[in-house]
């Protein structure tokens, strides 16, 4: 088990990356008692334009708040994929949206890579905006940064009430696809 | 008869009381301020008191 996880959720404004980052960090800090910090980078527009959330999760106090060498990257746009894919080492995990990302430009990727069509899956669930929650399921399954159980609690804390069922479904779907994908 | 008191320490001799008195109660002193020339004509309308910017007039009834 890694002591510290440095995670980047990258894509564009409107994809819910910052919310996903908050859920991830909250799962770690509130539901597991770890240390976690979430930071973000965003442009001037709420939708469109690059957007990313960074989450550092650790067993011990986090001194520097930002990601220096990512252990896990979620890329929801081609731009985000191209920014990180080539630079990650073989121990890192790269997860991208297989329905949105064009991977052809980056020839050599050494990280453990998983392509899952988060946005298409979300669309099938009836709401494209839950793609971020699908991806959280995948992240929970493919890393030990947080336990699946804590992440689910954090998802439901944020999206309770009428939205709970859909988000739970989205989360579970992300886990399921991660399992299938890792078995391939 | 109305008693009009003029506080000359406050009066700045603008002449408004004199000019707009409907009954010509006032005459002009040498500074341009009011002199109560015909108090018997005063109708106690109080307009001079109200229009005095300097709180220099008082009407005692």
């Amino acid at each position, binding site marked *: 088990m890694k002591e510290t996880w440095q995670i980047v959720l990258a894509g564009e404004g409107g994809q819910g990356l910052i919310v996903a980052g908050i859920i991830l960090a909250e799962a770690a800090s509130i539901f597991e008692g770890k240390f976690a910090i979430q930071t973000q980078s965003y442009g001037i527009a709420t939708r469109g334009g690059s957007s990313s959330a960074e989450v550092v999760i650790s067993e011990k106090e986090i001194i520097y708040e930002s990601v220096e060498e990512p252990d896990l990257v979620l890329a929801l746009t081609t731009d985000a994929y191209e920014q990180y894919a080539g630079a990650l080492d073989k121990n890192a995990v790269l997860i991208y949206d297989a329905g949105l990302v064009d991977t052809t430009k980056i020839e050599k990727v050494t990280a453990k890579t998983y392509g899952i069509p988060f946005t298409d899956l979300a669309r099938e669930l009836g709401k494209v905006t839950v793609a971020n929650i699908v991806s959280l399921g995948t992240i929970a399954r493919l890393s030990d940064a947080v336990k699946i159980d804590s992440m689910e609690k954090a998802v439901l804390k944020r999206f309770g009430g009428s939205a709970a069922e859909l988000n739970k479904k989205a989360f579970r779907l992300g886990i399921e696809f991660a399992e299938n994908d890792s078995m391939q | 008869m109305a008693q009009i008191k003029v506080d000359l*320490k*406050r009066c*700045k*001799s*603008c*002449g*408004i009381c*004199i*000019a*707009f008195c409907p009954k010509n109660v006032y005459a002009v002193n040498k500074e341009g301020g009011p002199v109560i020339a015909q108090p018997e004509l005063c109708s*106690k309308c*109080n*307009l001079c*008191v*109200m*229009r*005095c*910017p*300097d*709180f*220099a007039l*008082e*009407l*005692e*009834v």
Partner: protein
Amino acid sequence: MSEQNASWKEYIKESMLPQMWCSGCGNGIVLGALARAMAKLNLEKNKVVVVTGIGCWGKADDYFTCSALHGTHGRALAFATGVKAANPELDVIVLMGDGDGVTIGGNHLIHAARRNIDLTVVLLNNNNYGMTGGQASALTPLGMVTSTTKYGNPERDLDICSLVDAAGANYVARGTVYHVPQLDKLISDGINKKGFSFIEALSPCPTHFGRRNKLGDAVKMVKTLKENAVNVNSSQAQEGDLKEGSFLIGKLAERYDDDFNTAYEKIRQKIKTK
């Protein structure tokens, strides 16, 4: 009348008299009108806050016996908004000149009217910046001479009452220092009215505006106000038969919309009952 004379003195700090303004300046007349309005309404002195900005009229707070906040140029309404929003029990009376309230502070005026915050503004319009030497303001008419428009003002002035009406004030009125019994009433009605109340008081500045434009002395300037004023209820006003240079006086607009604090409390009640 005599009873009133006795009680307006409660609101004027006589130890500060004579007041500081020039001979024939109308400020003192409006000051008296306001004090009589306060007396008529029997306002509790410790519940009144007079808020002023900068300018000749901005010094008016010195002469009242109630609490006062003398702020910065153009911002009196913003200070007053904080006072009233934080303590709705207070009667907050805002005194601004045309330079202060309309020119530098015009944006606050629009938004205070739109917000309909329960303040009473007595805006003294003497058509120029009196205190600093008679420069042009947003209420200096086109072509008039001031110390910054020596060859005539290239800009038009503003019908400030129409603007405040358009912005949604609950009460808008105009008076003059000649029509002083009416001015008393307009001010006391304004204080009494919940929501944003705005009274424009036309007043001579013989020292600067009058002298530069050869408008005569204070008496002549007050006469001009008398001659050009048309009561809003007169047949002349009803028929819209206004000569150039004349203007309407009286209550120009009235609404019954919720003031800011009432609207805010309604929202608070809504979330409480949820």
